[in-house]
């Protein structure tokens, strides 16, 4: 088992060579909300990198800065210090080759399912006819055929979340950032969404940064699991998950899977978070 664990990896050398190869390279990144005595340090000198095509899960207790990290990578929040780069380019602001999936579906109630999926294409002025065909394919991929012209309020929570996910794929971004996308779903729907996401990822080979509260979900999906520690947000242990793909749901019952989950949970508990509260 030990060979599967990469162990501590708190600091990467800020070597430009690594940065230029990595899909995501984060170096000595810090972020403080506010100024003066009331400032909150959300991220404190964090660093790690993600290879192209890699699926990385980030787990950590509530408030450890996961969403903050995602906002920085999405270009929505400038870091206080340090740097983050995508494919060797420093993040200056939002980019068009990123897809973001938020914790809630964030659909526009005045747009149909198809209209919502096409939102990024509309914003970025992509070819309408080609995008429509692609949108219909994606709708089909997640089993929503027949609901193209429905409005969000006519869909269940799980269906809405699927719309949110394929919307992030419509403009074929190289990088997918997902912030607890399945947090609001029931256990059953969540598991089938995990299988679906793995399938999409295996087919499209995108780089994925996937934030979750669920250790099992993190292990099931990821090539690597990054544990974050709270107050201030830092990178703890990083675990390499060596399980063959595609992973069926039954993999969760295997001993190897259980050992990964246990190790990660222990790492979470050790870092002083409310690890016991995580599933």
């Amino acid at each position, binding site marked *: 088992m030990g060979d599967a664990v990469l162990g501590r990896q708190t600091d990467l050398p800020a070597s430009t060579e690594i940065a230029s190869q990595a899909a995501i390279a984060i170096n000595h990144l810090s972020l403080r909300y506010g100024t003066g005595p009331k400032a909150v340090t959300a991220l404190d000198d964090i660093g790690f990198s993600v290879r192209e095509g890699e699926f990385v899960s980030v787990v950590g207790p509530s408030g450890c800065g996961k969403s903050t990290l995602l*906002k920085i990578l*999405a*270009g*929505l929040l400038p870091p206080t210090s340090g740097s983050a780069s995508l494919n060797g380019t420093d993040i200056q*602001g*939002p*980019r*068009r080759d*990123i897809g*973001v999936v*938020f914790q*809630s579906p*964030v659909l*526009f*109630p*005045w747009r149909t399912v198809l209209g919502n999926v096409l*939102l*990024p294409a*509309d*914003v*970025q002025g992509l070819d309408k006819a080609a995008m429509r065909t692609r949108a219909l394919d994606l709708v089909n991929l997640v089993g929503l055929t027949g609901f193209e012209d429905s*409005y969000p*309020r006519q869909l269940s929570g799980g269906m809405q979340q699927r719309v949110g996910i394929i919307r992030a794929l419509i403009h074929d971004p190289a990088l997918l950032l997902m912030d607890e996308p399945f947090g609001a779903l029931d256990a059953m729907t969540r598991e089938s969404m995990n299988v679906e996401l793995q399938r999409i990822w295996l087919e499209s080979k995108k780089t994925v940064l996937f934030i979750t509260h669920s250790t099992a979900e993190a292990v099931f999906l990821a090539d690597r699991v990054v544990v974050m520690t709270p107050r201030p947000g830092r990178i703890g242990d990083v675990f390499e998950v060596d399980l063959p793909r595609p992973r069926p749901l039954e993999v969760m019952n295997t001993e190897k899977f259980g050992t990964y989950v246990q190790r990660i949970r222990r790492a979470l508990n050790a870092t002083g978070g409310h690890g016991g509260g995580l599933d």
Partner: protein
Amino acid sequence: MINFVLRLGLIGAVLGVWEWLVAFMQVPTYILPPPTSIFRGLVNGFSSNLYPEHIMVTLSETLLGFVFGTVLAFFLGTIVALSKRVEYFLYPFIVMFQAMPKVALAPLIVVWFGLGLTSKVINAALVAFFPLMVNTIVGLKSADEDRINLMRSLAASKWQIFWMLRLPNALPFIFAGLEIAMIFALIGAIVAEFVGAEKGLGMLIQSMNINMDVAGQFSILLILSMLGLLLNGTVTFIRRRVLFWDPATQADGKLNSDKGGV
């Protein structure tokens, strides 16, 4: 269906009791006329072609005032909502005007703009202006943080965020404001006619009041509430069409007529 018949029956019963009470207690017509003389006043008014002319005058004042007031309110509200600077400088004026009962300006406006159409349109516009401006500002500012972040993450321009997110998001607020503004415009026009006018239903009420024609006044009141229903109903009809996606619009169909009471 049963309920509808009961409803009609109740209205009939109220009118019947009214008619009987007025006759039984020998209430003079200049205090409270019986429904039959109100109805006669209505028929006479229409057959002599007196009412239609004045209805058209009041209706045009109301609609013109509504259009000018709301278009201006929409643009000003949009600018205030989108620019913190403009909001900062205009805020004292907005607060002051909002607290002031706008109908109290009617005498001044009639002095400034005369007895004709202009003063009525301006007064109606003034009264219709605020409900829509306030609702436009609130609506445009109420866009959900997550939705804004989604648009920003797609590298959307400010302009795109406005057209694709803020404006559609504000529409339920804007339509609620338009419904109020419609009724307010009617109130504004009538009040300005009270102050001084040559034509219009408000002027007619006043001259009937001087002649102690109370039945005639009641018939005008009836026309005014019909007019109010028609104007409000038109806005509601358009709102239902435009906001088919808004769950609140589907739900409050029965409630929104309450706003006429403002």
